[in-house]
């Protein structure tokens, strides 16, 4: 039984369909990230899960129990808001203790649990501090402790790292991942940052226009994206447009104008012969190969241990290649190739 299950959940705001009928199952202790651009419905889904927003139709099950009609305060959820929403008139201890006081937990146990939560986020000695005196990163950790201390059935996080600077964000990502591995909690995490999603998640749901386009592990999404949208959203990608020329079990070839021989690769589901489609070739797979396709180097970007090359075929098709600096060719015209097992033929996202 899944810890959290969305069953045909939809949300309309007047004429705007914020969520198309949507199903999602989260296993107990699993960290699932909703990844998508703004307006894709990920925060709406989170708010429905928290009970801040009623779905237009469908139901939500937590621990097998239908909680669709329950208000937020009866759901046992832990929410971390984007700008933390700490109570400014309470000190750190009382902020963390808030949910326990609402649950009328006895004072001795309350003290013990708040201290433990503060220790988990490494703020042991901050109990008496005013939350306004804390840095952004520290406030973020107080918000996390406040949400975790009530032992929620599900931990919800709405872009909690959005307000932090880049270096701090990386540290906190790793910190949250480490905490999750040490003590797995069912978590639903919302972000538009692919790196955040890749670092922290057990599974990622890529969302677009109120739908989950693809749900899978980071590796699955990266190596076998469902369509060009997912491919573009996760990692760097070369997407070469063409038309499906041949299709058989596990193999397809894509005819591309001005690119010579068709590109072979593994087809995504739902493709038909002569469909418009594109070939995904990750830049790190585009390598110099003797006897390969001819390409001219238009640009060389030195990125430290990596060099990015912008290449163009004689027919005008552009490709990026990312190579270890030591392996990068010096010539202006090179021959390139890739392993066709690494290539995916994907439907063009509408």
């Amino acid at each position, binding site marked *: 039984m899944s810890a959290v299950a969305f069953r045909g959940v939809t949300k309309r705001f007047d004429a705007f369909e914020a969520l198309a009928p949507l199903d999602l199952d989260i296993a107990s202790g699993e960290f699932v990230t909703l990844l998508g651009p703004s307006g894709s419905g990920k925060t709406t889904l989170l708010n429905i899960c*928290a*009970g*801040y927003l009623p779905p237009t139709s469908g139901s939500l099950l937590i621990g097998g129990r239908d909680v669709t009609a329950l*208000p*937020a*305060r*009866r*759901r*046992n*959820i*832990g*929410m971390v*808001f984007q*700008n933390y*929403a700490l*109570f*400014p*008139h309470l000190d750190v201890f009382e902020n963390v203790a*808030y*949910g326990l006081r*609402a*649950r009328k937990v006895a004072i001795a146990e309350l003290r013990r649990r708040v201290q433990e939560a503060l220790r988990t986020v490494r703020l042991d000695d901050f109990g008496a501090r005013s939350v306004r005196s804390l840095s952004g990163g520290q406030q973020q950790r107080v918000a996390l402790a*406040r949400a975790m201390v*009530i032992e929620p059935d599900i931990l919800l996080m709405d872009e909690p790292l959005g307000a932090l600077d880049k270096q701090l964000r990386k540290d906190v990502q790793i910190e949250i991942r480490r905490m999750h591995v040490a003590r797995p909690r069912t978590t639903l995490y919302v972000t538009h940052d692919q790196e955040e999603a890749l670092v922290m998640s057990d599974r990622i749901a890529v969302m677009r226009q109120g739908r989950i386009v693809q749900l899978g592990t980071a590796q699955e999404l990266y190596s076998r994206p469902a369509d060009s949208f997912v491919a573009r959203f996760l990692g760097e990608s070369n997407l070469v447009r063409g038309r499906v020329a041949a299709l058989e079990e596990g193999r397809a070839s894509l005819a591309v104008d001005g690119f010579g021989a068709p590109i072979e690769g593994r087809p995504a589901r739902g493709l038909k012969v002569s469909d418009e489609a594109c070939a995904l070739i990750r830049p790190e797979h585009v390598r110099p190969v003797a006897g390969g396709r001819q390409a001219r180097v238009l640009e060389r970007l030195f990125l430290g241990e990596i060099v990015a090359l912008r290449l163009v075929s004689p027919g005008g098709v552009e490709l990026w290649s990312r190579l270890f600096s030591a392996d990068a060719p010096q010539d202006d015209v090179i021959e390139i190739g890739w392993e066709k097992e690494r290539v995916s033929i994907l439907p063009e996202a509408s």
Partner: protein
Amino acid sequence: MTPAGAWTKAFAAFVAALVVVPVLATVPLAFSAQSFVRLPPQNWSLRWWGAFFADPSWLRALATSLEVATLSCLLSVMAGTSAALALPRLGPRVRALANGLFLGPLIAPVIVLAVGLYALARALGLVGSTIGLVLAHTMLALPYVVMNVGVSIATLDPRLALAASGLGAGPWRVFFTVVLPSILPGVIGGGVFAFVTSFDEVVLAIFLAGPSVKTLPVRIWEEIRVEYTPVVAVAATIMIVLAGFGLAIGRLTARRRA
């Protein structure tokens, strides 16, 4: 900002004097030894203070004023805070209408209100009752509470209440532990305004007062019509001090929390 020039300063002092002098002129009168009102007093004494505190009708008027002001302050704070909390949840049209209605008592001439309220109070048998005057002053004070609390609510992060209810707090707990502490400066500010509004209100009080419900301003007005002695200045000075106290309390609490 550039430093103020001499002329600017002089002009500011002039305006301040216009505002303050008439108020402060009352104070020396209260310490006059003469039995008639004349500025500046020739001799000084506390005899009119003695007269004030020796006369039960003055003391009763002071007590009535304090009672009416306290009650209408409490009522208008409760009603006004509730209204200010509800306003942002209304649709835009209803909200605009409700806002206009709440500000009505500020805009309508007080004498018009007085005539209307007098008719209403007569119909309800509330003329000459404490409760009638308290309700009338509550209505007059309501706009100040709605406005003051409204400003505080506008700066309140709505996610604080969401966070609290998500942590398991019911509506009352959310209000008393999260919303109220955050908007308290506005509530106190509105309450002080409400108290002072009622405390120095005279028009409605004259219309609605009976022999048993006579506030200090009404008593002053009656006294002046009969004979103009410095005991009136004593009553006025007491009012200035109490109103000043109220405003100071409001300011201090607002600053401490800001």
